């Protein structure tokens, strides 16, 4: 990796990535496709659990304005060193599992990933709901909407851009951090990074890093597309002609009546 030129290493990495033998799984060894699937699996499980916890909590806190300390606590948890927490949890949890199971390593990994994903989703959901213009909220109540209707039909749609941005930053963090699963015997794309270093196979190591980055970009693009169709145009302001804020609010209120 020292002198010797960056070009040969680029070609070696490309060579590693384009070798079909590296993509296929054998009974002895898991290929890139298999590890990619495992990596997506770790990330999806963690993100779904984090969403189920953080989204309702964020909506409730934002709507009621109560228990805002929960958001501060969740944000403070971001300072927790992930790898330290992982090793600690493995030491505590893995001795309880016997036989052919990965549960002793999978559960700690998912816990640390969920802990990582909750703060951005929670704080963005809370901030999104709380920052809905009081005029819009008052108008909704004034039209006779119930609490639940205001939250679901006015506050949530208005908060969606912020919620999506929180989810996207949580997703990127989880995809990048899921590489630590291979530190505790599991698979995922971290396998190539970790094994490449130990085997002095640097094209494999760099290839693994490139794959993680590519996965993160593709996943972000997918969510960006979802966001484009889910977020109301009245909120995102994606009109052909420039329109003022007031007419956007008007359009939104009209849409929800």
């Amino acid at each position: 990796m020292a002198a010797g030129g960056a070009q040969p290493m680029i070609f070696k990495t490309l060579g590693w990535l384009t070798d079909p033998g590296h993509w296929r799984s054998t009974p002895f060894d898991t290929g890139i496709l298999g590890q990619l699937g495992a990596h997506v699996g770790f990330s999806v499980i963690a993100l779904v659990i984090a969403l189920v916890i953080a989204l309702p909590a964020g909506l409730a806190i934002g709507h009621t304005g109560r228990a805002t300390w929960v958001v501060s606590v969740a944000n403070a948890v971001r300072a927790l060193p992930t790898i330290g927490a992982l090793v600690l949890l493995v030491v505590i949890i893995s001795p309880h599992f016997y036989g052919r199971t990965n549960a002793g390593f999978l559960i700690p990994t998912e816990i640390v990933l969920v802990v990582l994903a909750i703060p951005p989703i929670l704080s963005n959901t809370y901030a999104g709901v709380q920052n809905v213009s009081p005029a819009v909220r008052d108008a909704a109540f004034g039209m006779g909407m119930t609490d639940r209707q205001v939250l679901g039909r006015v506050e949530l749609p208005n908060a969606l851009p912020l919620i999506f941005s929180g989810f996207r930053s949580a997703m990127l963090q989880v995809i990048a951090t899921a590489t630590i699963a291979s530190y505790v015997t599991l698979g995922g794309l971290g396998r190539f990074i970790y094994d490449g270093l130990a085997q002095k196979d640097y094209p494999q190591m760099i290839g693994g890093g490139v794959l993680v980055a590519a996965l993160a970009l593709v996943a972000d693009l997918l969510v960006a597309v979802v966001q484009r169709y889910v977020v109301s145009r009245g909120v995102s302001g994606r009109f052909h002609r420039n329109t003022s804020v007031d007419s956007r609010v008007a359009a939104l209120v009209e849409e929800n009546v």
Partner: protein
Amino acid sequence: MRTNKLIVAAATAALALGGLTACGSSSDSGSSTNGTVAGGFIFGGPPEFKTRTDGIPGLKKNYGVEFGKYKVTDTGGPVTVGALKRGQIDAADLFTTDPSIEANGFVILKDPKSNFAAQNIVPIINKTKATDGVKQVLNGIQAKLTTEGLGELLDKIQNKKQDPDAVAKEWLSSNSLGTTGTSAKGVTLTVGSANFPENVVLADIYADALTAQGATVTKKLNIGSREKYYPALAGGSLDLFPEYTGTILQYIDKNASATSPDDVYTALTKALPANLVALDKAEAQDSDAVVVTKQTAQKYGLSSIADLAKKTK
């Protein structure tokens, strides 16, 4: 818009495919893939064991042993021991001095064909620091290091949680090597060690003996793996390091093929860069071993690595 939709479709397909293959490969069924005992086994060891010449390729070449699946655990550490004990893996790569082998009743499979290269303990030192006095002190230690002795030191550190430096000092004085003197007076050197207890205690032994003989010693212990410390040793920022003849030779020369203690040592003295020298090798060895649990050994009648290639009935 069209291109956007295409990208989405392609990405969704890729993710779905990835997900499906993951489901297929994550089932550790443990069923035999090649009709041999080893074919039904999951082997656990460090990542490099999978590709090292005396690792999985060597076991196949020398004994015809092909394991069903490889699981990366750690380098002879608690993860490997725990996984073997609890049945997540069936056979493991551990080190012969590891006290947890005896503590858990694990069985070391014999290696009659010397697949594993000799791993005698050897101090690697910067040539400019290897004065006659320093050599005399270190070679004196080397002459007293035995595999059993090392196992006892490790037992004290790992199981009885004693401080490595205190264990090192105790070992030196009980072997009458801790005497104060002036053999190494005027020498200033930095002693390093890798991040596992045995290497740390060896570095402590070297450092404490040299300090007692008048040298000015700085300790840089628990540095990490060889990829991290070897460049520092070759570059001169570390002067002395306890090493293992087989692995350091393999690290410097990927194609090294020597296996017996003397052959490995001779090859190592030739392979080392000009600024480093290997002092005397100790009788003590800490080599790799294929280890199974007692139950597994009894169930399949295993005593040698070659038994793993037996056909299952």
